[in-house]
């Protein structure tokens, strides 16, 4: 018996919009100019949200916060590709997705300020509470996708995680189950190069993360995560494929975490300033603006207006979040079970202390 090739695969990488704002017309997704302006406004709003969050944290008005700076295109591009009824299972670094999906911004601030009421997705949005424990949300996405398939609902599920999550067991278990059952799910990996202080090279020996998908029996693709067109196009195709019964897709979005891991971290301890500066040149918002200017889609008035609108929305969200009275201490009992246990009822009555 001669040796034979059992399987081979090729990993593609997609970029449509380069750092100079030049777009490959042949690859451009079908987006109207109006869509592109809307996407730009979402990107800007996400950036403004993030900058304000960092400022509020420094003033002690927000708790520990995980910045999304540099990763806005992944989040906004994929969110813009979703349909209204699609379900999302985020990790904790996708505020840009929340914003582009229409999640109330004041609730995001509320959550980061330590009020769990900020996690209660409005009834018309199917966004799971953010997931702090790395990779553990991925099986939920697969379960929901299989539930949708069982109920014959024409929806897709999308889940976000970082490159660090690909080292964990739940990632493997979930992708494997998704592959076996052809779950209508799209896996979006925000490969931002750093899991706190651990670089990609210490996370995996794989040349790409996208190639991991092939071992689960479905395609993986790498896209330039700072290119909103590449993200949008790839996510849109993957979601449509999922809805049509074509099974899962893994999208590795190659991007960079410009900020520290969280406000409790100091990235200067483990990475060089030059590296960050290199990535700042590839900024996702800047390159879209260059493109829009080149193509004559928008001029100075629009960009100034967009910045003003973003600022106003953020001002409004912050003041709304900060005007919400703190939760009633008894609230912590309310949602443990559907009904209070006899012991909880007694404990609730004893809630006279605390509050410091």
């Amino acid at each position, binding site marked *: 018996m001669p040796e034979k090739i059992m399987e081979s695969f090729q990993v593609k990488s997609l970029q449509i919009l380069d750092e100079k704002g030049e777009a490959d017309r042949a690859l451009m997704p079908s987006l109207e100019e109006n869509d592109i302006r809307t996407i730009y406004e979402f990107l800007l709003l996400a950036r403004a949200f993030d900058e304000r969050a960092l400022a509020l944290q420094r003033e002690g008005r927000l708790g520990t916060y995980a910045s999304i700076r540099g990763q806005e295109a992944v989040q906004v591009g994929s969110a813009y590709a979703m349909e209204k009824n699609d*379900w999302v*299972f985020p990790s904790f670094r996708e505020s840009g997705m929340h914003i582009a999906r229409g999640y109330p911004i004041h609730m995001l601030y509320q959550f980061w300020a330590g009020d*769990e*009421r900020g*996690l*209660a*997705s409005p*009834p018309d949005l199917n966004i*799971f*509470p953010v997931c702090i*424990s790395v990779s*553990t949300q*991925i*099986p*939920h*996405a*697969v*379960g*929901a*996708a*299989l*539930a*949708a398939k*069982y*109920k014959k609902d024409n929806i897709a599920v999308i889940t976000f995680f970082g490159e660090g999550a690909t080292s964990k*067991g*739940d990632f493997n*278990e*979930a992708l*494997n*189950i998704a592959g*076996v*059952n052809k779950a209508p799910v799209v896996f979006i990996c925000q490969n931002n190069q750093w899991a706190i202080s651990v670089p990609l090279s210490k996370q995996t020996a794989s040349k790409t993360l996208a190639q991991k998908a092939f071992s689960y029996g479905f395609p993986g693709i790498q896209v330039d995560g700072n290119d909103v067109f590449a993200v949008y196009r790839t996510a849109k195709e993957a979601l449509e494929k999922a809805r049509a019964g074509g099974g899962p897709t893994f999208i590795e979005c190659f991007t960079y975490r410009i900020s520290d891991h969280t406000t409790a971290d100091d990235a200067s301890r483990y990475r060089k300033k030059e590296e960050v500066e290199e990535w700042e040149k590839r900024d996702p918002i800047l390159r879209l603006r260059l493109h829009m200017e080149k193509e004559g889609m928008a001029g100075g008035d629009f960009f100034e207006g967009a910045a003003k609108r973003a600022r106003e929305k953020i001002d409004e969200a912050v003041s709304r979040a900060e005007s919400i009275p703190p939760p009633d201490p008894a609230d*912590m009992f*309310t*949602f*443990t*079970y*559907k009904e209070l*246990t*006899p*012991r909880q009822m007694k404990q609730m009555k004893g809630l006279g202390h605390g509050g410091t």
Partner: protein
Amino acid sequence: MVQAINLALHEEMMRDVDIIVLGEDVGRNGGVFRVTDGLMDKYGPERVMDTPLAESGIVGMAIGMAAYGLKPVAEVQFMGFIYPAIDQLYTHAARLRSRSRGRFTCPIVVRTPYGAGVKAIEIHSESTEALFCHMAGLKVVVPSTPYNAKGLLVSALRDNDPVIFLEPTRLYRMIKEEVPEGPYTLPLGKARMVKSGKDLTIVAWGSMLHRAVNAAQDKSADVIDLMTLRPFDEEAIMESVKKTGRLMIVEEAQKTGGFASEISATVSEEAIFYLRAPVMRVASPDVVLPFPKLEGYYMPDTAHIKEKIEEILRY
């Protein structure tokens, strides 16, 4: 008990199309103990899913299904294999309702055979139920007879919160009794009085219940089958202890940190002036669960419980 649980699943799946059974070998094979026998033939592979070998994935997937609106029943083949899924149970199942402020809920049932006494290979005889009792948001149920296994499982399947349903392996085929056709429920959180008396209260659950009943045969004792460990029926225990003045808890798990400790502490806090004797726990020793050759020395047996009964009655 295997047939009773199987019957409950059959009848409830007939009643509610949102019930999905998933786990390793639950489909074609009907489960390694045949608890899910015949379900796949009747309800098809969409509702009775043979999953890859992935406990965390199974429970995690069940959480996503439940949040979406299904009623998944996940089987973990043996309790000794549930530990990879504890992350999912603690981090998500238990808190989903709370951290989403009721926007999403997690009405899953996780079934797993548990306990020693069947001469199984290592890791197949665990009784670490106390681990699950320590987490607010979970409910923990342990049946002791075919009749209550069916009624409790039907309740678990209709409950709105995550339920860990622990099936004592030793009882799967040990106790025979008629189980009525058609669904009936036994309320979660309620204990049952198996035997009534005046000198002593014995609390037990699962496989230890039967040994406790045997040991107390010729004594005037209340024997309480706890059935739900979280939330447990404090009222039934208090009422009985106030009457008898003596409390013994019999559990199969090792003594330190076992659920008996919680019951003991509760009674000490609430009813110490009614006690005529120290609260006594009969439990397994603090050792790594031995292999089958020594299993008989490990778990409490009837003689052991009898000795303790004599001791507590001397007070």
